[in-house]
């Protein structure tokens, strides 16, 4: 009996052990084979960590390769254990002198904290040696380099370029091209110890960071500077609210300069208001005023309804439409003007009569054709489309008002592009900021004969019309003055709610430059011919020299003139 039981118990035990073994092996197989990858990854995550380091942003260059924005390593000062500093007062004073922080604030931080403390972050790279000297003088203070952005030209083209924050571009091209400018990230695998202190294997840290790529823009540093200088002088001299100057090459659509006043220093964006960060050339829309008469005349000539020598009755310079009377700024010198004279003398009555004769659909068609009421091809951040209502929303007064540039708003860039289309002989000008970008295929929007006639008219504005101050010695220029009233807006600080414009083309026979100067709410003077035209003259004279105009004569021409070949 007993002999029979023992084997059965043993057998049961054996079976139990066998089952247990199978379970253990099965569980092991489950953990090691089926879930092996998961647990391996879990273990790896506990011991290792992947950290991403931002690579330097790409530099922004002007068309000749001069830097507009560059990435750099900025020195930052810190201390690991503030309580062990031997001379915290001296250190606080030294850091305050270097960084501009309040010494008492620094000292308060040092006394209050027991762990890692920043003393000064992202100092200008020029302060590197001084920061290092502070680390040498005060034991416990260390230096760390952080990626930063530096604008070597300070305020130059600041509104166009923009600035960067911790997470990338904040405004301007820095924001618009953020994905392209960001150098990406480089990943490092680092080992962690039990207290999660990072231990970076030395062989995984690169000795030298890769050189960031550079993005070349169409901006010409010198023309931009001159445009800003002249614009700032004009705006400051008249205590105006703001101003814009644009210089554009109508042949390729290259934007050579885009100056905005007031501006800001992108190296210290925090010291200026966000209002001054705006690129008003594209984000703000204004009434174009008399400069819009070019579009009215373009519609008149291109539609075939008028010829340049056709006459328009202007009477005594007033025209009553419904409840409103339209006035010319100056009484006309005669009762009937030709189209050329309407443009040269900037007759509101003449333009209104032309617009009314053309009709709503024709006017609207040409306005849209020349780019009004829609954003430009640049599609910059915050770009405004302006305001152009469709004809069904127009009132009885809209058509005559639109004909001389009221009841609509456009950005300075839109207005410049409309003039550029005329300057280019009737082709749509697609603006571009990247010189390597393909030029858009030519698209004719106006007849060549229309543009020739309009260019002649623009020339007469400068020779005998309202824009005499825009003349550039030695160069034939043409353009249009404009003095737009800001309807329904009150100007502050003694300013007058007017916008003074001059938009012009130079040289007229072979346009290289289209330049717009706009001054918003000046004090005292209000007329575009008196405010913006002289600024235009200065900017264009400089720009043509910069662009080496006139070109050197060909060898055959030189030979004909008897000069060296």
């Amino acid at each position, binding site marked *: 009996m007993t002999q029979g039981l023992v084997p059965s118990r043993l057998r049961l035990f054996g079976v139990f052990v066998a089952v247990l073994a199978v379970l253990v092996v099965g569980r092991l197989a489950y953990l090691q084979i089926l879930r092996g990858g998961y647990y391996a990854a879990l273990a790896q995550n506990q011991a290792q960590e992947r950290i991403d380091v931002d690579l330097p942003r790409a530099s922004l260059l002007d068309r000749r390769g*001069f*830097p507009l924005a*560059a990435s*750099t*390593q900025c020195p930052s000062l810190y201390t690991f254990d503030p309580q062990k500093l031997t001379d915290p007062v001296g250190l606080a004073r030294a850091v305050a002198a270097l960084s501009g922080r309040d010494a008492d604030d620094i000292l308060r931080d040092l006394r209050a904290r027991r762990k890692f403390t920043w003393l000064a972050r992202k100092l200008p*790279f*020029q302060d*590197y040696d001084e920061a290092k000297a502070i680390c040498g003088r005060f034991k416990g203070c260390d230096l760390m*380099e952080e990626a930063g952005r*530096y604008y*070597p*030209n*300070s*305020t*130059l083209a600041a509104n166009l370029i923009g600035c960067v924050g911790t997470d990338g571009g904040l405004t301007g091209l820095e924001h618009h091209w953020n994905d392209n400018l960001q150098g990406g990230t480089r990943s490092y695998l680092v080992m962690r110890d039990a207290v999660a202190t990072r231990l970076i294997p030395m062989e995984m840290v690169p*000795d*030298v960071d890769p050189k960031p790529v550079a993005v070349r823009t169409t901006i010409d*540093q*010198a023309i931009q*500077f*001159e445009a800003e*200088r002249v614009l700032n002088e004009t705006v400051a001299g008249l205590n105006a609210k703001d101003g814009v100057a644009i210089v554009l090459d109508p042949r390729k659509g290259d934007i050579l300069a885009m100056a905005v006043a007031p501006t800001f220093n992108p190296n210290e964006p925090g010291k200026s208001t966000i209002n001054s960060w705006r690129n008003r050339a594209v984000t703000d829309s204004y009434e174009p005023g008399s400069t819009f008469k070019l579009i009215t005349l373009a519609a008149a000539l291109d539609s075939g309804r008028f010829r340049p020598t056709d006459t328009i009755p202007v009477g005594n310079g007033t025209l009553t439409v419904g409840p409103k009377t339209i006035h010319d700024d100056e009484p006309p010198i005669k009762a009937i003007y030709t189209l050329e004279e309407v443009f040269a003398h900037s007759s509101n009555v003449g333009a209104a009569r032309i617009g009314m004769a053309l009709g709503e659909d024709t006017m609207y068609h040409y306005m849209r054709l020349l780019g009004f009421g829609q954003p430009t091809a640049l599609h910059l951040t915050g770009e405004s489309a302006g305001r152009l209502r469709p004809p069904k929303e127009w009132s009885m007064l809209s058509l005559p008002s639109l004909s001389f540039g009221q009841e609509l708003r456009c950005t300075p860039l839109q207005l410049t592009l409309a003039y550029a289309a005329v300057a280019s002989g009737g082709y749509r000008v697609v603006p571009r900021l990247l010189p390597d970008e393909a030029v858009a295929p030519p698209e004719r929007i106006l007849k060549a004969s229309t543009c020739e006639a309009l260019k*002649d008219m623009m*020339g*007469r504005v*400068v*020779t*005998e019309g309202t824009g*005499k*101050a*825009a*003349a*550039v*010695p*030695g*160069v*034939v*220029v*043409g353009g249009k003055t404009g003095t737009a009233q800001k309807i329904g807006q009150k100007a502050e600080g003694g300013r007058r709610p007017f916008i003074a414009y001059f938009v012009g083309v130079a040289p*007229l*026979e072979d346009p290289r430059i289209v330049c717009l100067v706009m001054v918003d709410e000046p004090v005292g*003077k209000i*007329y575009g*011919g*008196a*405010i913006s*035209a*002289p600024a235009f*003259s200065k900017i264009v*004279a*400089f720009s*043509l*020299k910069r662009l080496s105009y*006139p070109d050197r004569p060909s060898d055959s021409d030189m030979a004909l003139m008897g000069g060296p070949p």
Partner: protein
Amino acid sequence: MKDIAIGTKPIRQPDERSMAEALRITLLIFTLATPFFLYMGLSAGQVKEEYRLSKLVEHRRILLKEHERLLLTRDALLSPSVVDTTAREKLGMVEEDPQEWTVGTPPEPGKQGGGAEARPPAKRDRADTNGSPAPGLHSAARTSRPAPAAPPGASRPEAKKAPVASAQQHAVPAAPKEKGRPEKASPAVSGASVKAVPVAKPPGGPARPKTQGRRRP
């Protein structure tokens, strides 16, 4: 091994077999030790070289950073605003203005074009527009052959009727006219000329800064 007895005390003699064994052991030790010491020596050299290399790499890294900083500093110093400020404030330079008259070098005796330096620095008449050069084209011809002075307030009758091109190519921008503001009548001045120097102080006129080649308006 054979033992030799001296007296009663046997003296143990090394046999040839033991000598060979000792030699073998010595050779073995030498064979083992030589590569070890060789390895140790090479390792030490390698460590030394690696240390030197790491120092050089670190030095290179610092130099590259310094180079980058210097490039940025150079860019900042070459920025137009800095150049402009330096030119204006430190070097006393003024920008070229084609509307501005300048006083020429005193002509050598017997040569054409004298007297420009003795002329009072009256303002150029804005109406005197003919012959105004293009920007940057202050030619020597202007130095040697000053244009005759136009009478004050002289008008430019051809400008109104001439074709656009011809009228403008000789045009000097007129002063911006503001409504209600009478335009100043300015005296005429000759079109003479360039950059040069000893200039007679104008009677009653302001003294010219020594550093400036031209007078700012």
